[in-house]
């Protein structure tokens, strides 16, 4: 667009005509924007900034919470490890004690079993020898009873009876 005034002057320069430059209307429009835009845009920007700040604060809070939880968990881990070590060493001690105890008990048991076996053997031997003795005595009596009728005549019989009676009378 070109206004006739420009042809007259030519070259670069300033045009200070109030109406040709439309400066009055422009200043009104710019003033209107200046009044209106900061409220509109400023409101949007402020809301955006507030939202971001809230987000940041949330994130920071979550970070601090998470790091606190992490620390707690680490502490718990350390405590648990310590406890595990303790339990492990306790277990070792107890295992050692149980092993010693059971060894001792085994040895004792073996000794007891050995002794028991020995005494059983003695008792059996005693029983067998007494049985043998009794058997021998029985057989001797049987043999004696077999041979008794041949050797026993009237006189000896009478002697034996009187002897027995005498024994009875003495007693």
């Amino acid at each position: 667009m070109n206004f006739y005034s420009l042809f007259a002057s030519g070259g670069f320069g300033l045009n200070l005509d109030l109406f040709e430059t439309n400066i009055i209307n422009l200043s009104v429009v710019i003033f209107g924007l200046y009044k209106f835009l900061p409220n509109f845009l400023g409101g949007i920007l402020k809301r955006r900034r507030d939202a971001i700040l809230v987000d940041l604060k949330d994130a920071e809070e979550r970070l601090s919470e998470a790091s606190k939880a992490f620390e707690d968990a680490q502490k718990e881990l350390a405590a648990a490890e310590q406890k595990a070590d303790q339990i492990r060493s306790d277990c070792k001690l107890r295992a050692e004690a149980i092993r010693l105890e059971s060894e001792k008990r085994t040895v004792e048991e073996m000794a007891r079993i050995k002794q028991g076996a020995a005494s059983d053997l003695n008792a059996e031997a005693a029983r067998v020898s007494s049985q043998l003795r009794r058997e021998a005595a029985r057989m001797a009596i049987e043999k004696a009873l077999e041979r008794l009728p041949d050797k026993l005549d009237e006189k000896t019989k009478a002697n034996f009876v009187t002897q027995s009676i005498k024994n009875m009378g003495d007693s």
Partner: protein
Amino acid sequence: MGTLPFIFPFAELEVGQHLYWQVGSLRLHGQVFMTSWIVIGALLTLVVVGTRKMDRDPRGVQNLLEFLWDYIRDLARTQIGEKAYRDWMPFIGTLFLFIFVSNWGGALVPWRLIKLPSGELGAPTADINTTVALALLVSLSYFYAGLSRKGLRYFEYYVHPTPIMLPFKIVEDFTKPLSLSFRLFGNILADELVVAVLVFLVPLVLPIPVMFLGLFTSAIQALIFATLAAYYIGEAVEEHH
């Protein structure tokens, strides 16, 4: 472009007057370059100032820039899709910010205080060359996006639902940059013209609502351009299977 004279009985109002810079055999529209550089400079300053001292809690310019970043990311992500939007976010964001600041700069900065030998300063996007350049960049981008992501399978897109679509899709490749550039150029130029004509007819008060409307449409146009660019790129990288 040629001259389109608007002749009024009591005043002369012309489009197509340019401050020509001769570079070799090219005649450049100098006023567009100047305002573009100013826009680029303003954007770079804003970004450098906003990111120089970055804080964890965003305040001031940093907050504004982060807000814009969020906005552009949402735009790119909805149009291009989760997979590829990261590659194209800078491009979409540059388009959006450049067009937006150009449009608003053209409408808000009192450029007419500065007299040029010929033509006048204004929004760079009110010149068809700027918008065509931007639209062709978008075309190149979506071709590159499709080809780099899918290789030659990109051309399956042309026969995608049925081969009958082939001519339409080919025509689309030409109409896309055309519609992009003309929509932006037409809207911004029309806005400037309407304001200029109204200022001629009724110098005070009446142009003000039209100027506000112009600010609104300018912002919408920037959004439309960026959204469509992102949509075209998204269409090119989309997987059909």
